[in-house]
């Protein structure tokens, strides 16, 4: 039976220690979550693991030992390691060993008890699979940490072995809170060991964001309170406010800013994305607006614009006049009714004349207005564009008026025509019955009606032509305004953060598909199907992303999956039981290929980042297919000086061991301990490199007792050794 060991890539070059993780017996896979370094006190290790087990409901345990040493470990070392197995009983006991600076790994599995099943194959192969913890955790494949009515201690069963791995890693966040640079009793190495130090700016920003958000949120609430006051609800202002797109845009932006600076944390990833996208769009907006501002205000462009505006308006008015003259003549060869033509034409010409005088009246103030409008660009490009759209609307107000007149006339004419047509045929519109009924008219009614009908009919082309022309003009203006609004909407709603994340860190966008979101109780559970594009066999990054936590019930019967009475595993909850609960159980563990990207397993060869990574691993003992070694651990940032750590209880030096080499566990002796003259050091000596730690052995102040009854043979169970801990890993003394 092949035993799969999932090993985090960040732990490839850490010092020796114990492997902490979870054993999944159904798939005979061991998921290593962290490496626990020497020295440690076994009882404290067990306490920590019990705490983690309780908090995260992941059955973490000590799985084995990890040995990263310079040369081949000696046989005594081997026995020592096996002796550790007696302190932390775990079945099977994994022993991974790597030569420092080499590429050869050795993996051994020892079973303490004889295999209960005689038919099981005797030889154990170990398959070592590397996974990137950071990517697995940062992708959102796992459920939130708090779930209602989960069952304590229940471990989910599934055939999807990799789903169990994801789930294990994702739920063990509690374990990742302390690392080897912390002042705790236990020193762990995991993905956070390298990551936490680097994000000092992010930490500062996070700390500062609290009060800043509070301040800005209160300011924004003040602004919105002012905006909601009753003055603005009265008729003229409310009407004007609803028509101007600038007000609309300002309101939008206010909403966005309120969302960004709200002091409530985002509950799930969708809200977080929304917040982040809003931030990105606001930033882009302001940046573009400031660019526009600097462009406008440089080299007196505003003056040029203002100077150019009035002639442009004049020009437009002239063109309109020419158009009307054309209409008043014989447009496109059509013969218009001369009298009506003249009336309408002169009416509209008079309007244009009014308009031009209005523009000329405004011309001295244009420059100031433009200057202030340009200043508004610092609120954002969208505000400036909305203002532009409003200005265009105001400047082309006459075209709007013409359109309204033409449309009204045309509308009246058409109504009249239809009604008189009905009269011509002897019918009438029955308002009560909402239908056309026959009706007997008098002769004079018929006469007048027919006369009017004829008049209206022959005047139709003229009115229709005016209507057509002005509607087209209006459409043109509306199209320009529509384009501007489209641009504004684009800036408002483009999810820049998600796009950037998709390009740079695609694994962070993994999320449950919509089919797996919380559903109402009455809806049937969704069927999960891969999209047809998958039939082509090409990689389907857009394939629906199945949550890794889902497949845990995959192998139960379908009936069992659909009932809500089934006992749920710890992390799933029946979708039927409550609205807003977690995704409904689904039939299978569909981890699509895309999901492997988040597995982040190291890749051989070049290629673009973030695409599904291949599995590199070893089959049984031997050469890894591709070991990607992580960077060496950065030197410790000196923490608080560190008083020398005293562990309690204080115990006296053992007499039995040579040179006071303080190793408690059944160590057969012959330890070439470090010279005990080395002064005890602080827990975190300033800037040790990763190599120095084992050399100094992390000597602690207190020493250990040796229980007098300690057996010297590994493999036997020890009495619980209180206050016993290992000072150093003997094999590394020579470093």
């Amino acid at each position: 039976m092949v035993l799969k060991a999932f090993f985090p890539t960040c732990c490839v070059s850490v010092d020796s220690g114990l492997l902490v993780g979870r054993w999944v017996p159904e798939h005979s896979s061991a998921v290593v979550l962290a490496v626990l370094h020497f020295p440690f006190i076994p009882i404290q290790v067990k306490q920590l693991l019990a705490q983690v087990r309780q908090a995260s409901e992941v059955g973490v345990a000590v799985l084995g030992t990890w040995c990263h040493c310079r040369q081949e470990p000696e046989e005594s070392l081997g026995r020592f390691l096996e002796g550790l197995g007696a302190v932390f009983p775990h079945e099977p006991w994994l022993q991974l060993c790597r030569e420092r600076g080499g590429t050869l790994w050795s993996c051994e599995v020892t079973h303490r008890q004889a295999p209960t099943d005689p038919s099981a194959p005797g030889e154990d192969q170990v398959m070592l699979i590397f996974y990137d913890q950071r990517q697995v955790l940062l992708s959102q494949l796992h459920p939130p940490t708090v779930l209602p009515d989960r069952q304590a201690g229940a471990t989910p069963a599934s055939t999807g072995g990799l789903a169990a791995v994801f789930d294990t890693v994702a739920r063990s966040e509690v374990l990742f809170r302390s690392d080897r640079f912390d002042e705790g009793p236990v020193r762990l190495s995991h993905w956070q060991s390298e990551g936490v130090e680097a994000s000092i700016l992010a930490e500062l920003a996070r700390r500062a964001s609290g009060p800043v958000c509070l301040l800005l949120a209160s300011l924004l609430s003040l602004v919105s309170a002012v905006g909601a006051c009753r003055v603005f609800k009265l008729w003229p202002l409310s009407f004007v406010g609803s028509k101007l797109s600038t007000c609309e845009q300002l309101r939008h932006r206010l909403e966005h800013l309120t969302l960004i600076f709200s002091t409530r944390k985002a509950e799930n990833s969708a809200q977080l994305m929304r917040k982040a996208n809003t931030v990105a769009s606001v930033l882009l907006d302001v940046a573009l607006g400031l660019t526009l501002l600097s462009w406008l205000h440089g080299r007196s462009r505003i003056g040029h614009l203002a100077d150019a505006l009035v002639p442009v308006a004049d020009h437009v008015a002239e063109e309109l006049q020419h158009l009307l003259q054309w209409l008043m003549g014989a447009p496109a060869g059509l013969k218009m009714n001369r009298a009506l033509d003249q009336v309408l034409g002169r009416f509209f010409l008079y309007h244009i004349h009014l308009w031009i005088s209005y523009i000329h009246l405004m011309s001295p103030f244009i420059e100031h207005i433009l200057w202030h409008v340009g200043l508004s660009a610092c609120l954002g490009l969208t505000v400036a564009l909305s203002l532009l759209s409003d200005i265009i609307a105001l400047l082309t107000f006459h075209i709007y008026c013409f359109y309204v007149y033409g449309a009204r006339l045309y509308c009246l004419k058409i109504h009249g025509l239809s009604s008189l047509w009905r009269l011509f045929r002897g019918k009438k519109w029955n308002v009560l019955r909402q239908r056309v009924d026959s009706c007997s008219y008098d002769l004079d009614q018929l006469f007048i009606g027919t006369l009017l009908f004829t008049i209206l009919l022959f005047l139709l082309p003229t009115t229709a032509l005016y209507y057509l022309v002005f509607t087209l003009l209006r459409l043109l203006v509306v199209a320009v305004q529509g384009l501007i609004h489209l641009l504004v909407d684009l800036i408002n709603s483009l999810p820049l953060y998600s796009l950037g994340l998709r390009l740079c860190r695609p694994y962070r966008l993994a999320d449950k598909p919509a089919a797996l979101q919380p559903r109402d109780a009455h809806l049937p559970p969704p069927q999960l199907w891969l999209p047809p594009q998958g039939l082509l066999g090409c990689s389907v990054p857009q394939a629906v992303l199945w949550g890794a936590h889902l497949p845990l019930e995959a192998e139960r019967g379908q009936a069992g999956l659909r009932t809500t009475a089934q006992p749920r595993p710890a992390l799933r909850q029946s979708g039927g039981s409550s609205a807003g609960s977690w995704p409904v159980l689904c039939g299978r563990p569909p981890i699509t290929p895309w999901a492997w990207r988040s597995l982040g397993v190291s890749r051989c060869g070049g290629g673009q980042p973030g695409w599904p990574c291949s599995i590199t691993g070893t089959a049984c003992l031997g050469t890894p297919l591709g070991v990607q070694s992580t960077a060496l651990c950065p030197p410790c940032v000196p923490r608080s000086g560190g008083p020398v750590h005293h562990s309690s209880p204080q115990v006296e030096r053992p007499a039995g061991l040579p040179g006071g080499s303080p190793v408690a566990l059944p160590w057969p002796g012959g330890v070439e301990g470090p010279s005990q003259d080395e002064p005890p050091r602080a827990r975190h000596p300033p800037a040790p490199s990763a190599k120095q730690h084992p050399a100094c052995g992390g000597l602690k102040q207190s020493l250990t007792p040796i229980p007098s009854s300690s057996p010297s043979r590994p493999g036997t169970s020890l009495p619980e050794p209180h206050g016993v801990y290992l000072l150093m890993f003997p094999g590394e003394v020579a470093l």
Partner: protein
Amino acid sequence: MEDERSFSDICGGRLALQRRYYSPSCREFCLRCPRLSLRSLTAVTCTVWLAAYGLFTLCENSMILSAAIFITLLGLLGYLHFVKIDQETLLIIDSLGIQMTSSYASGKESTTFIEMGKVKDIVINEAIYMQKVIYYLCILLKDPVEPHGIAQVVPVFQSAKPRLDCLIEVYRSCQEILAHQKATSTSP
């Protein structure tokens, strides 16, 4: 243990199949496609440039020529990055899954992984492709609802398109592993 043989694809081009046996439960098959031939590249470039020159003589605008050069370059880069697949690999690890990797000529790699629990079987199917009937190897995936149904068919070696003899080699090895996997999974 490594092994390399040469086969041919359905159009007659030469393929190189490299088999690696890492262990009884882990095998890898690597198919290398014929490289981009200089002849076809020259032909396409000459066509594009002749067309551009023809346009230039019509319009007397030298921008057309530079545009043609850019188009050719960008087209070549795009082709190498998105279309031309150099090598296709199939990695089967018993008890873990099947992984298919395509590496493009520009170095880009795209990977698809299928978990072993989803794999029902690996078969050789026939298909009508243009005017030919070809054989292709495909992976059948299990249906969640129906225990004997098939949810999906995932073809393998889609750009290399090897012939039946190559497919049979791969098929035999895959079936050995699948049989081994079924045997170990049914035994407790």
